[in-house]
């Protein structure tokens, strides 16, 4: 246990810019060690280990505690960290400004680990803010592009906002005389009104970090701005740390009393986030930004699960709550896997081609087949396709939704199916989006010369990606084991109630409630598919022809030599843009068709409006500017005016004194 904290500090200490390999090597090693420890702790189900260092608040010290919840998230964090470091062993060679990345990468990892281990409010927020800060530094690594600088600024301000919200929440939990220790907070009770306030603040704080709509605006700007292995960490892992914060506060620290409408609130937010996230993603042509928006979507799915769990707990339906929680945590795990994988893939593409804009990519499957395979697996997983892992967690979420009619509250009765519809919609749209992402990027023909010369990435990167890909597959076909692994965490958060143990189900089938109700067996699905597929291939090649002739594409008899004739990302998204975008983004399309005989190309102009930015954030910014401009003239007063200010203050106070009595 001591080694955990020590290890975290070792990472922090390892911020030496002498050669990336050492740093990443050390990071890799420490992450693996931590991973092993966390796994051991989770599986053996030992009692929570604690550690107190004489740091931080003097009369409190820095408490660290490792319980099941922390252990699970430690696994998520350090798995991602290890893989990212591994990837960076190769990827780091291409880094333009290593001195701006190396020092902060281990610090970032350390920050995330400390958040998970922290056991009092001060340490928690300290680590939380430290995490934001180091990731900010990483976002600013390529600060010479103005867009990145802006992204970093927005990111840090939103992070500060979130921290302040959490700070207020902890203030309420700790009470006026500052019982910041988590143990004290758990022991204490909060009045229902304050509890609701704490929930709202936790939503603001953790939500702004996790990218919950409408607090997501920074996310799609900041995540892509960082170097790709950092983007993988931020998107795949840091958002999970934020989810951890929410769970820790709402499920663990706040405890009872839970009101049913909390669940409804979180649920609705989750549903909206999921759909809006994927719609935003569909409108993007920047590969990494598309992925970042998908993080928003998946966060929405996770929060749907959490909201369901809250609703169930509020009605003492702990078995159902266990199902919902399992679904949410499972999705946390899954998303950390495939989102890291996808970002790493994007990073590989970026280094190979120097392009992030999908409109200039294409045909990479020929030049970098392995990356393409890994990315394909990731895409299939995030699109919730069986037999991969993304499907399992969404399936569990659906199962949890299907129990909802047993909820007594009418509002929830109606809300939950609606959210279910949103979830289904987002899943389907995600599939569409990743057909676009993979198809336009890797398939077809190269759209720019730089892409044509692309080479396959280095070994480290490939290994890193395939580790994740194989984990995606394993978690997909053996979900029962993961669910069992999650059981102690769920029990911890759910008053002991957990799902029935899965590992001795026949054929390792996943049986959330009872087998007549709903079952799923990824292993068999995979087996059947493999069998039938290979059988078909074998038979056909043996009995029928196996001959192949290469020729030009048929394409209904239109031989188009020019790759520009291919469908682009924009044109691929056009039908969906028409269907959804015109409502959500007021998407407007204008075709500029040159007059006949004119040789200049016809242009399609698409105008998209971001409703949340334009309605929510821009006004605030304008207000600040306006007010500060208004006040600014106070800088230019004459001394006499300043004197009269003092005079006025004096007279005012004296009057106040007279009236006070």
């Amino acid at each position: 246990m001591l080694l955990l904290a020590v290890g975290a500090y070792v990472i922090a200490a390892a911020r030496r810019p002498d050669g990336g390999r050492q740093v990443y090597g050390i990071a890799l090693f420490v992450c693996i060690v931590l991973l092993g420890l966390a796994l051991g702790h989770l599986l053996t189900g030992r009692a929570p280990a604690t550690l107190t260092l004489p740091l931080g608040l003097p009369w409190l010290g820095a408490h660290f505690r490792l319980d099941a919840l922390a252990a699970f998230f430690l696994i998520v964090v350090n798995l991602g960290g290890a893989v990212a470091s591994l990837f960076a062993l190769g990827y780091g060679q291409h880094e333009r400004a290593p001195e701006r990345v190396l020092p902060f990468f281990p610090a970032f990892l350390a920050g995330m680990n400390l958040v998970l281990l922290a056991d009092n409010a001060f340490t928690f927020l300290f680590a939380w803010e430290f995490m934001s800060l180091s990731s900010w530094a990483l976002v600013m690594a390529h600060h010479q592009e103005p867009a990145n600088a802006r992204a970093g600024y927005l990111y840090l301000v939103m992070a500060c906002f979130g921290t302040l919200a959490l700070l207020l929440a902890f203030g309420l939990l700790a009470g006026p005389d500052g019982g910041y220790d988590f143990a004290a907070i758990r022991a204490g009770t909060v009045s229902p009104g304050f509890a609701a306030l704490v929930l709202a603040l936790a939503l603001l704080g953790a939500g702004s970090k996790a990218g919950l709509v409408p607090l997501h605006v920074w996310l799609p700007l900041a995540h892509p701005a960082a170097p790709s292995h950092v983007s993988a960490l931020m998107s795949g892992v840091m958002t999970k740390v934020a989810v951890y914060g929410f769970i820790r506060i709402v499920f663990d620290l706040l405890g009872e009393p839970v009101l049913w409408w909390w669940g409804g609130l979180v649920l609705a937010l989750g549903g909206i986030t999921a759909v809006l996230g994927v719609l935003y993603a569909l409108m993007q042509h920047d590969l990494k930004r598309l992925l970042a928006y998908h993080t928003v979507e998946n966060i929405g799915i996770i929060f749907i699960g959490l909201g369901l769990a809250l609703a169930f707990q509020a009605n003492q339906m702990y078995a159902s709550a266990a199902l919902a929680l399992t679904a949410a945590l499972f999705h946390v795990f899954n998303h950390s896997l495939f989102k890291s994988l996808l970002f790493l893939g994007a990073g590989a593409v970026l280094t190979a081609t120097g392009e992030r804009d999908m409109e200039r990519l294409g045909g990479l499957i020929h030049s970098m087949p392995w990356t393409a395979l890994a990315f394909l697996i990731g895409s299939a997983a995030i699109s919730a396709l069986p037999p991969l892992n993304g499907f399992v967690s969404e399936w569990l979420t659906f199962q949890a939704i299907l129990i909802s009619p047993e909820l007594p509250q009418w509002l929830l009765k109606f809300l939950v199916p609606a959210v279910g519809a949103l979830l289904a919609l987002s899943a389907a749209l995600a599939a569409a989006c990743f057909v676009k992402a993979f198809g336009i990027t890797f398939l077809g023909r190269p759209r720019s010369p730089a892409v044509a010369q692309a080479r396959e990435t280095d070994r480290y990167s490939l290994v890193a990606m395939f580790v994740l890909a194989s984990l995606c597959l394993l978690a997909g076909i053996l979900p029962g084991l993961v669910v069992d692994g999650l059981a102690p965490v769920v029990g911890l958060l759910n008053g002991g109630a957990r799902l029935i143990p899965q590992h001795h189900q026949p054929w390792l089938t996943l049986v959330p409630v009872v087998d007549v109700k709903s079952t799923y067996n990824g292993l068999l699905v995979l087996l059947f598919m493999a069998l039938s597929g290979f059988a078909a291939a074998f038979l056909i090649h043996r009995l029928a022809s196996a001959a192949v002739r290469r020729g030009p594409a048929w394409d209904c008899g239109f031989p188009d030599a020019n790759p520009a004739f291919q469908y682009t990302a924009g044109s691929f998204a056009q039908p969906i843009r028409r269907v959804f975008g015109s409502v959500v983004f007021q998407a407007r399309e204008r075709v500029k068709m040159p007059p006949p005989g004119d040789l200049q190309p016809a242009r399609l102009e698409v105008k998209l409006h971001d409703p949340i930015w334009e309605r929510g954030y821009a006004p605030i910014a304008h207000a600040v500017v306006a007010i500060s401009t208004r006040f600014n003239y106070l800088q230019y007063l004459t001394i006499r005016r300043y004197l009269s200010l003092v005079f006025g203050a004096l007279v005012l106070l004296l009057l106040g004194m007279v009236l006070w009595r």
Partner: protein
Amino acid sequence: MALIADFLVQGCQMLLVLLLAPLLTGWVRMIKARLLRRRGPSVLQPYRDLLKLLRKEVVLADSASWLFRVAPYLIFAALWVAAALVPTFASGLLFSWTADLIAIVALLGTARFFLALAGLDIGTSFGGIGSSREMMIASLAEPAMLMMVFTLSLLAGTTELSSIARFILTADVGLRVSLGLALLALVMVAIAENARIPVDNPATHLELTMVHEAMVLEYSGRHLALIELSASLKLLLYLSLLGCIFAPWGMATAGAGLTAYLIGMTIYVAKLAFGGVLLALFETSIAKMRVFRVDQFLGAALMLGLLGTLLLFVSRSR
């Protein structure tokens, strides 16, 4: 021993769907031809086509990648497994619990995913048209389907097809508004998913109207054969889905013995034939709609599904 028997039954169901699929397609084509006062090809024509295609060599576009060659097998496998998991003549078979209704829907999604990717692989304009439209349609069809699933599972308290079928058979469900809505939604989805009129036209090769055909435009030889076979499997799947959910009568239960199985099989075939006739009638009596009307069509399906679910609460709370 019993286990082996179960294996046999399961296997025979897999083979059955595989064998029946082209027949169904042929049947629908024939009925359509007759309705149009044509003689039309024989019912067995699809089999002949498949065999012919299988024997032909494959002409691959230069820009085709390994994905393009793997996709047909993947699609075929996914659809076959899905079709085999839908109870056809008997419910509660050995592996029926492998995947519930949601999983089956997702399997269809897998097939679609790879089909769309294959459409994009060559890098032609038509492939792109097909894929993007297909995904747009799917993005609406899948939620509608899932809403239908919600309705059923809320009604039957399960997402296992066999259990649903059993529930519909045993419990006195009566005529339920939500069931009707669900049926409607499912039918609309089925039409859209199988690229039938009015959403798409399986027979057209007119560039701007085709969706499914545009994606598979570049396929030839055995690959095309697999694609065609998968398409008919899909049609079969939806019809048997309709059959097993809304008309489960005559379906044998597991281990009911050979005779029961045979009866079930004949009734199943009859159901398929009937469904095919209905489909042909519908298709001949309606005109194809613009691509951008499809979203309204499917949006209606989605709304119906949702409405069905909500109405269920109303009727349940009584």
